[in-house]
């Protein structure tokens, strides 16, 4: 009745880890796409649009992700839009990530010196060419460390997908701990798995940051 923590349990955690990775990828890809739109709208120069986007960002940065997922999952269902759990979670994460990444990238876009845009304008380049060729390539470099940092948050944040039934790593840990009654061991292993997933990214991020800082000094 009560198995000990062994190979099958470890395998179960690994399957949870797969979900964690998959959910993270979906959220990140979705968040990047939507975040780019948010960032561009937030810097478009039209006061009304910028304010609407600001409020959008404020709402999703100002409430717990847990409750956002809840409201998307059940709220959309109440409106008669019955999405599969995966699609609902993907939407929830995408929307949340778009707010955070949008804000990170807005900062990066605005951190590109104004003279760059002016030089591009003076050369007769249109908005799309200015963004694509001049501003965004520089903004991406500036934003990379923070973006990687957010990716780490996202990996950890996917644990909240459990509330709508996803058995990702944290949930798998709960289940195994509930079967084996060795929560310390189980959560230790789960923590280590998150660490192995997140730490290389964090390390890469801070190295990028250090490099950027160095480049900035020159």
């Amino acid at each position, binding site marked *: *009745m*009560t*198995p000990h923590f062994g190979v*099958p*349990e470890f*395998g*179960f955690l690994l*399957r949870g880890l797969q979900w964690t990775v998959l959910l993270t990828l979906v959220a990140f890809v979705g968040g990047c796409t939507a975040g780019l739109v948010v960032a561009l709208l937030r810097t478009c120069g039209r006061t009304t649009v910028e304010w609407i986007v600001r409020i959008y960002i404020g709402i999703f940065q100002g409430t717990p992700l847990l409750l956002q997922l809840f409201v998307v*999952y*059940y709220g959309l*269902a*109440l409106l008669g839009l*019955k999405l599969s*759990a995966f699609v609902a979670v993907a939407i929830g994460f995408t929307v949340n990530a778009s707010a955070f990444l949008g804000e990170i990238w807005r900062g990066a876009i605005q951190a590109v010196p104004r003279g760059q845009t002016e030089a591009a304008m003076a050369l007769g380049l249109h908005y799309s060419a200015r963004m694509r060729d001049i501003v965004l390539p520089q903004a991406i470099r500036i934003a990379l460390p923070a973006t990687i940092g957010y990716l780490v948050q996202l990996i950890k944040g996917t644990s909240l997908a*459990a*509330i*709508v*039934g996803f*058995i990702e790593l944290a*949930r798998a840990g*709960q*289940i*195994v*701990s*509930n*079967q084996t*009654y060795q*929560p310390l061991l189980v959560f230790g292993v789960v923590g280590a798995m998150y660490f192995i997933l997140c730490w290389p990214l964090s390390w890469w991020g801070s190295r990028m940051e250090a490099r950027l800082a160095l480049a900035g000094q020159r």
Partner: protein
Amino acid sequence: GTLEDVKKKGVVVIGIQGDNPPWGYVDSSGKQDGIDADMGRAFAEYLGVKAEFVPLAVANRIPALTTGRVDILFATMAMLPERAKVVQYSKPYVANQITLVAAQATPINSNADMGKYVIGVPRSSTQDTQVTNNAPAGAEIRRFDDDAATIQALLSGQVQAVGANSFYPQRLNAAKPELGFEPKLHFTALYNGACTRLGEKEWNETANKFVDQIKSNGKLAAFYAKWMKAPVPVFPDSVPGVPFTVQ
């Protein structure tokens, strides 16, 4: 959707608990198991469709049903009058003893004794309701997310007693046999039913016919022997405040 939709699609979506053995849990190979899972599969078979399980956390079982994310709940749903106001119960199919469990050495003999200790319960569970109703005013009750955390709180000494269902003593003693965990107070026997949405007559009638059938054809007895290691108890014909049919 409606019963007809389900038959057309060939899949019934069943809400179940994901981490609460032996009621409903996902085993190490990722398969949904437990007595509720067997019930669910039997129900799908009864309808002639496939079963699709949605594992739910305790607190999300009712919203998953009411918002239409699942068609029916086999999710350790104890019959309580308040719940009956928002979901439609079927006839009962499982009984559950709700008790207060503590180590042998902890002297608890009456409800009033609960006031002297810190008591843990899984939030939103039947135990939560029972302990809250029976404990003296001012008793310190700590609410955790699920059974695992509650049990762990007792084992680590963060609480001295827990509101338990029939399976807690067995699990606790497996982890720390030297403490001799035992039921101290008996609160109530509770009955679990399948839940459908309020007012959906067709679903409710189908669920009731299914429960009647497995009671009479011995299937339920087999499930009971497998999971509860006990014979099927006698179920009451009515539970106060909990109608089994659409009113």
